């Protein structure tokens, strides 16, 4: 079962803060999918997560302003 976090309506830096908090609840090796509608987050959040050692498994554009980022927890 994939854990999903819907961050539509949220902006930076809270997109990262909330993703990070959710990841703390996820087991190591598990995947988390985060939904963003804030374009800068699609670049910033994966970069910050990589800095903390997590893996970005994929970034999918689902619409004009809608992205799904798949993260594997370190």
């Amino acid at each position, binding site marked *: 079962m994939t854990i999903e*976090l819907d961050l539509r309506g949220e902006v930076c*830096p809270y997109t*990262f803060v*909330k993703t990070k*908090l*959710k990841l703390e*609840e996820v087991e190591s090796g598990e995947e988390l999918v985060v939904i963003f509608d804030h374009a800068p987050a699609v670049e910033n959040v994966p970069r910050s997560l990589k*800095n903390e050692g997590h893996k970005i498994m994929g970034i999918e554009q689902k619409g004009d302003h809608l992205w799904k980022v798949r993260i594997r927890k370190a």
Partner: protein
Amino acid sequence: MIGGFNEEQIRRYSRHIILPEVGGKGQKKLLSSKVLCIGAGGLGSPVIEYLAAAGVGTIGIIDDDTVDLSNLQRQVIHGGNVGKSKVESAKQFVNNLNPDIEVKTYVERLNANNVIDIFNEYDIIVDGSDNFATRYLVNDACVITNKPLSHGSIYRFEGQVTTIIPHKGPCYRCLFEHAPPPGMVPSCQEAGVLGVLPGIIGVIQATEVVKYLLGIGELLVGRLVYYDALNMTFQEIKMRWNKNCPICGEEPKITSIQEEIYGDSCRIW
């Protein structure tokens, strides 16, 4: 709610949560921590201010004094509260800054009879007192109850700060076995103090407390930072455990807190 934090807390603590060394986990540690501040004066003001801002969940404040106009030159949390009890004034400040914090107030003097029971309620003790009797009482009670202690003191343009982890590093008595004789060292009241000085020393104490609670970095254990505001220098003085220390040595002479050791501020040993 994400990870136990509500929307307001996520925003309030976001700059902590972003830090890899803190994160949500560290912020939760702070929120569940209990810190006792001895004194809500010059040193206590910045300590209370920054610990409350950081989200230290329970802050105990002990002080039997009331706010005087002459305090406001350095005691920055008491604005508008002249004549009010310092602990009540401090509590009001904390409530305005961060409603997450529970403030426990003690409008009394710390003494040989109440010190152990009060200390037992807390994870770490911050000494912001202004007299040797309290300073030695706090040190000895921290060794006996095995509580970490942040020591700070100020004089005119100079301050010193160190962190004491009983039985893991030296204590205050390892460095200064006894208080100076009465009358040798003038009090803040007689000597004067540069208003910003307690701000600097108190903020270092708050930094040490936050680091201790988070379990990060290197604490000032076995090191005393001596600050000179006039020359703007920070010196580090190595402190060694004294095996003959009367409280934390191999054969301690002090094994319990007895009133006659401390008495009032004019008579210690």
